[in-house]
C-alpha cells in the first residue's frame, strides 16, 4: 500500500496520520473510504478514496498525489480501524457519482472521436508552447554570448536554472535537463568557457533544428523531438518491428537524471551484433523488475523494440523467451579505431549524443595528468572514473582485457571488465 506513496516524505507523513484519533466522521461503505482530518486550514480536509481505482480526492492543497491524507486513510482502513457504515458521507457519494458519470462518458460510443479531437488539440497547444519556449531559449542564449561567458560565472551556481524552469513550463524537459546540467560548468575548473560554449552552441542548434523540423528527414526529426523532450509512448515503441536475439548485458550504470535515479543497461545481441540501451527511472529510488535483474554476466533471450530516431539504440523489451541466464565473455570486442568510427557515424545522425557503448580489448595505462585506455595498436583515449580504474588495472595485470563501458566526449568510462569468463563490475 505504501508503494502508492509518491515519495518517502509522504510515506512518513501518512504513517503519522494513520491513527483513528486523527480522523472524524470517518468510515467505509462498499468501495469507498472517507474521513475528515484536521489540518493547518480552518476547515478540516475531506478525504475520499475509491478502492476500485484506487482513486483519491482530498480538499487539502497538497500537490502530491495521492496526498498524505489519502494514504493515511488507506493505512487506517488496512489496520481495520475504519468503521463499516451503512451509508457513505454526502461528499463521498457525490464524488463517486461524478467519477462514474465521467467513466461512462469515456466508455460511450461518442467518446472516441471526441477523445481524438481533444488529443489533437492538446498536441497543438504543446507544439505552440514548445516553439515559444525554444524561441525564448534562443534569445537567452544570444544574450549570454553578447554579455560574455564571464557573466555566467559571476551569477554563480545555477545561472541557467531560471531558464531551465522556463523550459519545464514550455513542456520541453529535454532542453530543461540540458540547461540544468550546464549550470554547473562555470564552477567546473579549468577550460570551463570552452565547455560552456559547446553546450550553448548545441542547445542553440537544437532550437534551430526544431524550428525547421518540417524540413528534416524523419529520423533526424525524431532525434530532435526526443532531445527537446517529446516522449514516445511505450505502446508506440512496442508496435515497431521486434529484433529477437540473445542480448548479453555488457554494462549497467546508475546515474542521476536531474534528481531522479536513472539506470542505463547496455546490451549487445549475440547474433545481430547490435547494441541496445534499456533506460529506466526509479523516482522512489529502487529499481525493480527486469532492470534490477539484468547485471553484467547475464544474457536475456528476448524481443527488443527500438525507439524511433537514429542511431537506433534505446529499446524496450517485448516478449521474453526465458529468464536471464549466465553468459561468458562477450564476442565482438574491437579496437579504438572501430569504436571511434562508430562514434563519428553516430554523431552524424545525432549531434547531441553524449554516450555511446564501447566493447574493447584494451589496457588501462596509469599516468599523469590522467589515466588512458590503450588498445593493442597503441591508440589511446582518456580513461574516466577514478573509482573503477584500480580494479580495472588489477584485472588487466598490464595485459589487454575485454572491457565494456561508455564513450563520452571527455573519454571512456569503463563499467565492466571480464576476468577470464567472469564479468566484474567496476
Amino acid at each position, binding site marked *: 500500500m505504501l508503494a502508492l506513496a509518491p515519495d518517502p516524505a509522504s510515506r512518513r507523513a501518512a504513517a503519522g496520520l494513520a491513527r483513528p484519533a486523527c480522523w472524524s466522521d470517518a468510515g467505509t461503505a462498499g468501495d469507498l473510504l472517507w474521513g475528515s482530518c484536521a489540518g493547518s486550514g480552518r476547515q478540516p480536509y475531506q478525504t475520499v478514496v475509491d478502492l476500485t481505482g484506487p482513486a483519491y480526492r482530498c480538499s487539502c492543497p497538497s500537490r502530491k498525489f495521492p496526498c498524505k491524507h489519502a494514504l493515511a486513510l488507506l493505512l487506517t482502513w488496512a489496520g481495520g480501524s475504519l468503521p463499516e457504515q451503512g451509508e457513505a458521507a454526502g461528499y463521498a457519494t457525490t464524488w463517486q457519482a461524478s467519477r462514474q458519470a465521467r467513466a461512462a462518458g469515456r466508455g460511450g460510443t461518442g467518446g472516441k472521436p471526441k477523445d481524438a479531437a481533444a488529443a489533437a488539440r492538446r498536441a497543438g497547444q504543446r507544439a505552440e508552447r514548445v516553439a515559444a519556449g525554444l524561441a525564448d531559449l534562443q534569445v537567452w542564449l544570444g*544574450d549570454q554570448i553578447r554579455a560574455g561567458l564571464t557573466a555566467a560565472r559571476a551569477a554563480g551556481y545555477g545561472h541557467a536554472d531560471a531558464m531551465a524552469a522556463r523550459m519545464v513550463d514550455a513542456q520541453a524537459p529535454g532542453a530543461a535537463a540540458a540547461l540544468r546540467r550546464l549550470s554547473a560548468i562555470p564552477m567546473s575548473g579549468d577550460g570551463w568557457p570552452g565547455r560552456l560554449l559547446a553546450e550553448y552552441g548545441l542547445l542553440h*542548434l537544437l532550437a534551430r533544428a526544431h524550428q525547421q523540423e518540417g524540413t528534416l528527414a524523419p529520423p533526424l526529426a525524431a532525434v530532435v523531438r526526443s532531445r527537446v523532450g517529446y516522449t514516445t509512448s511505450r505502446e508506440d515503441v512496442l508496435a515497431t518491428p521486434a529484433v529477437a536475439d540473445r542480448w548479453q548485458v555488457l554494462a549497467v550504470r546508475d546515474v542521476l537524471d536531474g534528481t531522479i535515479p536513472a539506470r542505463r543497461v547496455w546490451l549487445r545481441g549475440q547474433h545481430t551484433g547490435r547494441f541496445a540501451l534499456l533506460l529506466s527511472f526509479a523516482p522512489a529510488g529502487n529499481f525493480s523488475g527486469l532492470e534490477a535483474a539484468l547485471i553484467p554476466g547475464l544474457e536475456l533471450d528476448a524481443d527488443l523494440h527500438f525507439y524511433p530516431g537514429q542511431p537506433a539504440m534505446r529499446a524496450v523489451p517485448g516478449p521474453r523467451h526465458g529468464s536471464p541466464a549466465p553468459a561468458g565473455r562477450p564476442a565482438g570486442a574491437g579496437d579504438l579505431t572501430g569504436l571511434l568510427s562508430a562514434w563519428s557515424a553516430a554523431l552524424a545522425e545525432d549531434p547531441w549524443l553524449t554516450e555511446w557503448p564501447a566493447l574493447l580489448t584494451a589496457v588501462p595505462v596509469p599516468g599523469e595528468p590522467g589515466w588512458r585506455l590503450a588498445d593493442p595498436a*597503441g591508440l589511446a583515449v582518456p580513461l574516466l572514473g577514478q573509482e573503477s580504474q584500480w580494479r580495472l588495472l588489477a584485472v588487466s595485470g598490464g595485459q589487454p582485457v575485454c572491457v565494456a563501458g561508455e564513450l563520452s566526449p571527455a573519454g571512456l568510462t569503463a563499467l565492466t571488465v571480464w*576476468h577470464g569468463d567472469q564479468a566484474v563490475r567496476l
Partner: protein
Amino acid sequence: MTAMSYAGLVAAATVGVGRRPELVTSLAGPAAAHVGVLSTADPAASVLDAAALLTVAHRAGWLPQTGVSHPGPAAADSAPELPPRAAALLSRAAEADAAVLTDLLTAAGAAGYRAPAPLLPALLDAAIRDRALRPAVADVLGQRGRWLAAHRADWQRVVAGAARPDPADGPDAWQTGRRDERAGYLAALRDTDPAAARELLRAGWASETGDDRAALLPVLARGLSAADEEFLETALDDRKGAVRAAALRLLARLPSAAWSGRVTERAWPLLRLEGTGPGRTLVASLPGGLDPAAARDGIGGQPPPPGISAAAWQLTQVISLVPLGQWASRFGLAPAEIVALPVAGDLASHVHAGWRLAAVRQASPDWAAALLTAGARHPQTLRAGSRPLAAWPADEQLVAVLPPAARADRVARLLSRTTITPAALAELTACPGPWPASLAEVVVSLLRAAVTAVPGSPAAQASWAGTRWAGELASAAARNLPATGGIDYAAALTRLAEAGSCPPPWPVVLHRIASTIALRRAFLEEIH
C-alpha cells in the same frame, strides 16, 4: 577575417560579442565547408552556430593519442586464484568483520591460494586502514598484487611490511640502503649463512650509529646459536642501553652461554631450599649490594617500581633471569611443587614476581600453569597490594604462554562457574580459535543460558548485566567457534535464535554469529 578556430570563438564569447559585434564568416578545419549555414543576421547567433559546428566536428573527428606504451605486465603467478565462490565469500567477510577476514585470508594463503585480481584494490585499501590485516593480505597478493601495489605509494606499505628480502639484491642494500632495507638484507643473509651475517655486522660494528646497532642486533635472533655468544658478550658493554637490552634478550635464549651460568650462580645464595619432606621451605634473602658485573648482566638496570624497595626489586630481577629449568634440577622438584612451597619471611611475592617475569619471558608453559594455579590459591600472600605490570605480569600474560589446549581448558573452567567475571570473558576473547569442542560447548551453553534466562531475573542480570559483554562474546564466538567438524554450530545457534522464547536482541545477535560461522565453513570447504 581569418578562419575562426574554436579557441577564437571561446575568446570572443568569454568577453561578450556585445562589445564587438562581428559576424563569424569563416571557420578553420573541415567545418569550413559548412560556413554557409552560419547566421548572417546576428553576430551572437553566428557564434553559437559556429560553436555547435566546431564542437560536433571536433567530437566526431576524435583523434586518439598514438604510440601509448602499455605498463610493463605483471609476472605470471604460479599460485592459483581463489575460486569465484570463495572470492564472493571473501568479499562478504571483508564487509563484515576484519578479524574474520584475517582468518580467511590466512587460511587461503596456507592452502596455497592467492587473492582474486578484482578484490586486490579493496584488500590493499583495507590493509592500509587496518595494520593487523597487513601480514594476511601481503601473504595472498601474489605477483599480480605486488605488481598492482607498485603503482601506488600507500599500497607499497603493505608489501614492504612483508618483504622477503633477497640476498641476491646485492650488498648495495647493506652499504647504502635505509635502516629497514639493511636489516632486511642482513636477515636474508642470516637465513642462508648465519656466520657470514654475524661477521658482516661485526665488521662494521664500531662505525654504526647507536640507533643502527639497536635496530640490527635483534636480527641475530634468526638462527641464533652458541657461535654468536662471544659477539653478544661484547655487545653487553655497548654505550647504548637498547643495544645492551637486545644482547641480554639474545643471551637469555642460549642456555649454554656463560651469561646463564653467571646469573644462576648469583641466584643460588638468595633462594635456598631448607628442610625435607612436608616441612620443606624456601628461604629467600635480600641481596646485600650487587657488584658492577651484575649490572652488566642485566640486574639493577632499571629503578625499582614504586612501592618496592631497591633490594627487593634486585631479588626479583636476579630470580627472573635464571633459566627456569635450573630451579627444577637444583631442587629436584617439578615446577608445580616449587611454586607451592612456602617462602619464609615476607619475600614470597618478590620471589613469585621473579618467576612470573621469567615464565613470560622464557615462554615456559609448565611454569605459567603452575604460577597461575598458585596465584589463584594464595591471592593475598602472593599479591599484597597492586603492583605495576612491569613487576608482576598479569594472568593474561601467563595464559598467553600456555599451549592452546590448556588455554581453552582453563577458559572453559572459568566460564563454567556461576558468575562470569570480566577477566574470564577477556581470556575467552583472547583465546585463539578455532576453539576445541569442550570450550565451544561451554560457550554455546552460556549463550543458551543467557537467552533462556527470564529477563530481569537475578540470573539474567548477574551474568548478562552488560550487553557489551554480549557484543564481545558474539564477535569472539562468530570468529572462533569451530566452522568445520562434526558439530554444526551455525545450525545450533539458528535453532536457538528461532526458539519462541528468544528475547531481543538475541535473535539478531545469534543469527549474526551463525551466518559468520556458516560463511567460514563455506569458505573453508571451497579451498580445501
